[in-house]
């Protein structure tokens, strides 16, 4: 093949430039084209280092192509096609521009060969995704967008600080794997920056805060790229870090616990991103060949089924105007296809055999068990149960059944393009599930894994089946409440408030004192000095001058009486007088 490297970000960046310039609304039919060009570029690109350029006095590598970057780029491109088909009906140029920039940023991060290039695209993603929240054009979205941007700026600054200090220490921006034993403190700074985007607990609260408030189509894009780009950079740079193995398992369980009690469907799915990314992060931390492959495979499968979950709940929100389970229910006869497509994604994320999650999630769990990380493996099994409980049973039950059939609620017809996109996603979930070798052939590490053994299939069937039994026993307790559940954003907000308090009170009080002291002592002192100077001026200097004038007059009178007509006497007297006045004036000037 004589293919050359075409950077997949370029068509998206061009689209972002062109969309505002086209006058007709028909441009929307062309929206999937950059994504299709990206698919072609990824399928034909040769491995190696491409796109090296000089910028800011540094060598930037924009095209590092190897098996690891290709597997992520592959699914990024496919999900971009699906995402833009889903957004085809939208007459909002700003959203299309933001989505194109965001996807371009995702590809840029995946192919970045150095920290500087990575940082530039990282920040592009951060800004464009903030736009996707703000463009929902609701007061709560605006506020959530500010919080999101603030938190990602903080993470970006940690990455920037870490990479600059690293450059100072090593003289290079090279983005290569760091051995856990050799990691310096600045490497941990970079790791923390990455962990913000990977939504590692306790740095995760931005995700369930912001994603439910993004636009319907924006959330579909955001669910795919931000966290998975972070998974990619963690895989590239920080595999084998124990903190990730434990942190990932905590994420997996933490996410499903919150998903069990949440009311907003998109917030439930957001917590499931935390949970599912937890599997990937744990796989990266355990770092056996099998778990690393599992992390890649799970990222691939996850992007497709999570996109489908956000598309189907987005369709629900589009049709009914709400994503709150307490306000939904009894909709299965009205939106049967949304229900079926949702269930395909739900059984995929739950790891049911024949669907995509089964062939990827079990890789991480089996890898953890084979690496003798028994507790971590057991934690991940527990999270699988919670996943099926909340996404596979609770959400669809309360959204589509639970209440009597709702035949009167006004329902906005769902555009055909949304159904096409959802159908594509569902087909991929199934194809990956029944033909796992298609996915496995992309994986970068050497590890053989056979998902369809009798025991694997039976074990997951028992797990899911008895979770269903548990659900049927507990369904009364699971009724969603129209409440807001506190999470770590409580602490972020309090840290913010304490900071604000310090600005308002102690700092402000010190500032007020300082102004007062200045006013009393400084300004008052100055006035005092001015008064003294004035006094001195009036009494002493003027006194001397006036006095001398009076004196001169007096002297003149006396002189007049003592005029002897001797010129030398007059001159001598005048000189003495002049000297006296001059000396006194000099003396007072010096004293002032």
């Amino acid at each position, binding site marked *: 093949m004589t293919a050359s490297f075409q950077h997949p970000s370029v068509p998206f960046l061009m689209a972002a430039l062109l969309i505002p310039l086209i006058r007709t609304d028909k441009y929307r039919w062309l929206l999937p084209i950059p994504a299709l060009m990206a698919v072609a570029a990824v399928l034909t690109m040769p491995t190696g280092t491409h796109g090296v350029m000089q910028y800011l006095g540094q060598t930037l590598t924009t095209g590092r192509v190897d098996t690891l970057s290709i597997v992520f780029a592959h699914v990024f491109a496919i999900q971009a096609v699906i995402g833009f088909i889903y957004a085809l009906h939208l007459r909002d140029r700003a959203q299309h521009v933001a989505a194109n920039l965001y996807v371009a940023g995702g590809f840029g991060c995946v192919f970045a060969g150095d920290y500087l290039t990575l940082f530039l695209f990282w920040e592009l993603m951060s800004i464009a995704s903030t736009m996707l929240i703000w463009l929902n054009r609701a007061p709560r979205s605006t506020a959530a967008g500010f919080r999101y941007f603030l938190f990602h700026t903080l993470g970006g600054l940690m990455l920037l600080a870490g990479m600059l200090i690293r450059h100072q220490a090593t003289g290079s921006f090279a983005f290569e794997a760091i051995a856990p034993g050799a990691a310096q403190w600045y490497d941990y700074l970079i790791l923390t920056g990455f962990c913000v985007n990977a939504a590692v607990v306790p740095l995760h609260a931005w995700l369930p805060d912001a994603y439910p408030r993004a636009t319907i189509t924006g959330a579909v894009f955001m669910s795919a790229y931000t966290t998975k780009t972070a998974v990619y950079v963690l895989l590239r740079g920080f595999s084998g870090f124990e903190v990730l193995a434990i942190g990932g398992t905590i994420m997996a369980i933490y996410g499903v616990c919150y998903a*069990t009690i949440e009311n907003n469907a998109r917030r439930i799915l957001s917590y499931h991103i935390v949970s599912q990314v937890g599997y990937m992060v744990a796989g990266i931390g355990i770092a056996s060949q099998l778990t690393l492959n599992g992390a890649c495979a799970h990222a691939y499968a996850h992007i497709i089924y999570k996109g489908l979950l956000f598309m189907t709940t987005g369709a629900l929100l589009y049709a009914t105007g709400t994503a709150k389970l307490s306000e939904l229910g009894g909709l299965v006869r009205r939106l049967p296809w949304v229900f079926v497509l949702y269930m395909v994604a739900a059984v995929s994320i739950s790891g049911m055999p024949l669907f995509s999650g089964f062939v990827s999630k079990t890789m991480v769990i089996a890898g953890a068990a084979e690496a003798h990380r028994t507790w971590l493996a057991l934690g991940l099994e527990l999270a699988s149960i919670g996943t099926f*409980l909340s996404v596979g049973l609770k959400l669809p039950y309360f959204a589509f059944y639970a209440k009597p*059939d709702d035949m009167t609620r006004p329902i906005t017809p769902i555009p055909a393009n949304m159904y096409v996109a959802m159908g594509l996603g569902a087909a991929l979930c199934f194809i990956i599930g029944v033909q796992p070798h298609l996915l496995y052939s992309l994986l970068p590490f050497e590890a053989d894994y056979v998902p369809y053994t009798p025991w694997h299939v039976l074990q997951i069937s028992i797990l899911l089946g008895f979770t269903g039994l*548990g*659900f*049927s026993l507990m369904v009364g307790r699971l009724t969603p409440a129209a409440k*807001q559940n506190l*999470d770590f954003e409580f602490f972020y907000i309090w840290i913010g408030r304490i900071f604000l308090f310090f600005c308002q009170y102690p700092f402000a009080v010190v500032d007020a004192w300082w102004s007062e002291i200045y006013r009393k002592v400084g300004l008052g002192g100055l006035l005092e000095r001015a008064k003294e100077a004035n006094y001195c001026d009036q009494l002493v200097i003027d006194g001397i001058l006036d006095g001398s004038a009076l004196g001169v007059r007096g002297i003149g009178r006396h002189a007049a009486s003592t005029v002897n007509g001797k010129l030398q006497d007059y001159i001598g007297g005048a000189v003495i007088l002049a000297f006296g006045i001059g000396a006194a004036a000099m003396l007072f000037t010096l004293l002032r």
Partner: protein
Amino acid sequence: METSTLGELLGRARQNPGFWKKVMYGIMVLLVGLNVLIYPHHPHFPGEGKPGYWAVFALVATVAMVRICKGAAHTFLGKKEGYYDR
């Protein structure tokens, strides 16, 4: 109100909860029965070789998770919507 054949089918599914319960229990029994015949050759967890291990694990975990999480939501996590907008 317009509905499709699929919608009718899915809507009708819930008119017979007793039947579905029987199907579910049947599947449970079948799965645990299969577990006697099919078991892991290299158990990774203590007790994994015994039939019904994962069944008990899943049931206990589900009930515990619902009780603990819902309990937390009822006592200290759940606040009025718009809690931070005060």
